[in-house]
């Protein structure tokens, strides 16, 4: 199958479908959720039924409706954090690559130092210091990931900057901004798109892990990670309730990774590889 001139593999197709379903249901949650996600409707951990597809949670709320709304929160948080990471990281990375000299050295050293601490630990300390909220989660994850994006963007830009036509443009005396916009960005786009997908899937898992550790959004709202945490007591009771949101997290991440694999294969097609 061909889409926009690109050959679409079966896995990529499945990946896109998963993303479509997850994002679609998140966007449409207010219209398709059968119940109020925050209203207690029955007993604790009522079993799944025709009325409540995934059963009820620990205080009798409809799991299915909460999952729809939870996905909305999880996806939004991860998406915004990724956007922030790219906004900051790409600008800094391109600046380092183009300006070189001390700007590059300074930014690279700062990145080295920050990445010498495990990211999860850094995030835990920062978030428990300032208190958890959606904004804090986005800022923390976004800025920490910006450091990684910075490295990628710098490497990508480095490879392009040395190409002859870019140097030619600079010699022609074109402005820095113009060079970035017209010459570098178009060439950097494919690898950065794949990196965006990859970063999103990591951010998504990261949000889930932090929420699972109790640093998620404010109740009664819950993203998927918080839902796992909230209902974890069902496990010793032999119930699978916490596995539903956890499986949803896994599903969307798989979908994104399938698409990322496809994106990567598009522009690194070595010797006619068609894997």
């Amino acid at each position, binding site marked *: 199958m061909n889409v926009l001139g690109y050959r679409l593999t079966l*896995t990529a197709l499945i990946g896109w479908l998963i993303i479509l379903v997850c994002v679609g249901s998140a966007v449409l949650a207010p219209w398709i959720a059968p119940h109020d996600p925050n209203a207690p409707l029955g007993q604790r951990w009522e079993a799944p039924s025709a009325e409540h597809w995934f059963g009820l949670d620990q205080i009798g709320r409809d799991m299915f409706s909460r999952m729809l709304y939870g996905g909305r929160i999880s996806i939004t948080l991860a998406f915004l954090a990724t956007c922030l990471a790219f906004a900051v990281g790409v600008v800094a990375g391109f600046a380092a690559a183009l300006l070189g000299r001390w700007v590059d050295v300074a930014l690279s*050293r700062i990145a*080295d*130092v*920050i990445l*010498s*601490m*495990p990211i*999860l*630990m*850094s995030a*835990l*300390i*920062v978030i*428990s*210091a*300032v208190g958890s909220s959606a904004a804090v989660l986005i800022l923390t994850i976004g800025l920490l990931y910006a450091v990684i994006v910075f490295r990628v963007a710098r490497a990508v830009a480095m490879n392009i900057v040395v190409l002859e036509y870019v140097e030619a443009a600079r010699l022609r005396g074109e402005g820095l901004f113009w060079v970035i916009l017209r010459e570098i960005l178009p060439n950097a786009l494919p690898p950065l798109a794949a990196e965006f997908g990859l970063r999103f*899937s990591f951010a998504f*898992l990261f949000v*889930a*892990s932090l929420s*699972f*550790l109790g640093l998620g959004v404010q109740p009664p709202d819950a993203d998927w*990670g918080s839902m*796992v945490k909230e209902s*974890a007591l069902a*496990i*010793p009771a*032999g119930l*699978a309730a*916490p*596995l539903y949101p*956890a*499986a949803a*997290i*896994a599903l969307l*991440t*798989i979908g*994104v*990774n*399938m698409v990322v*694999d496809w994106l990567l294969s598009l522009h690194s097609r*070595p*010797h006619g*590889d068609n*894997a």
Partner: protein
Amino acid sequence: MLKLLVQRLALGVATLLAVSVLIFWVTELLPGDLASNILGQSATPENIAAIRAELGLDRPAVERYTEWLGDAVQGDLGKSLANKRPVIDVIGPRLVNTLFLAIYAAVIAVPLSVLLGILAAIYRNSVFDKGVNIASLAAISMPEFFIGYFLILFMSVQLKWFPAIATIKPEQGFFQHLYVTFLPMLTLILVVIAHMMRMTRTSVLSVMSSPYVEMAVLKGIPKGRIVVHHALPNALAPIINVIAINLAYLIVGVVVVEAVFTFNGLGRLMVDAVAKRDIPVVQACGLIFAIVFIGLNLIADVLSILSNPRLRHPR
């Protein structure tokens, strides 16, 4: 080459120094303080002030940083503010537990993932390759708590094969330790095998597409032989790198798995210490994590340089 290695080492030390400043500065920012956290609901202004004075929390930060770093270099990480035990004693058993689990997982995961990666590369595009590829993709995508709870639900709660809580007690024997930490180990290897295997496969394949390997193929040398004798040695550098990253993860990044299995490792200790504002313990944990991180990367760097002549002269 010796000069290069010394350079790398010096860079590592410099980074570590910078990280130590960062750790100290960030931990100073933690709001709330230990005095009132020690006392919990029993806190009153008078007894908080008494504890603060006793712990020396009222001295300037720069003074405490230089003192802390000086002591840390000599192996003295100070005393826990909370119970006045030497930080070494607090961290020691936790570090041993963490290393035990990390090594347990690594010993199984590293050979297995390299083997799977090579096999997938040899039989690329076969059913085996595609199956392993999909499985590893799924494993990478699953949050650790999903794998952990799934294993607990089925292998512990329902089948009762393995304990759900992985508590290592000193009086238990070695094999008992292996048994009680089986489920967290399994969770960890599912995560790291996927990463390492995929990287191995990619690295081997990228070497396979280089001209001299293609030449070997044209000469009719068997594929397996090409992979083992030609592709693998040249793909070693990226493989070593990904192994180092995953080893680092096994030591510093497993707090979620520790939480799921109530494993008394370093990650949970640090989270607890952050919660209780026991700053010396937080700082010591941070320092250990940074040393592991920087150290493993350094080792990987050095090994890469040694294993690949082309890397001996980096840009």
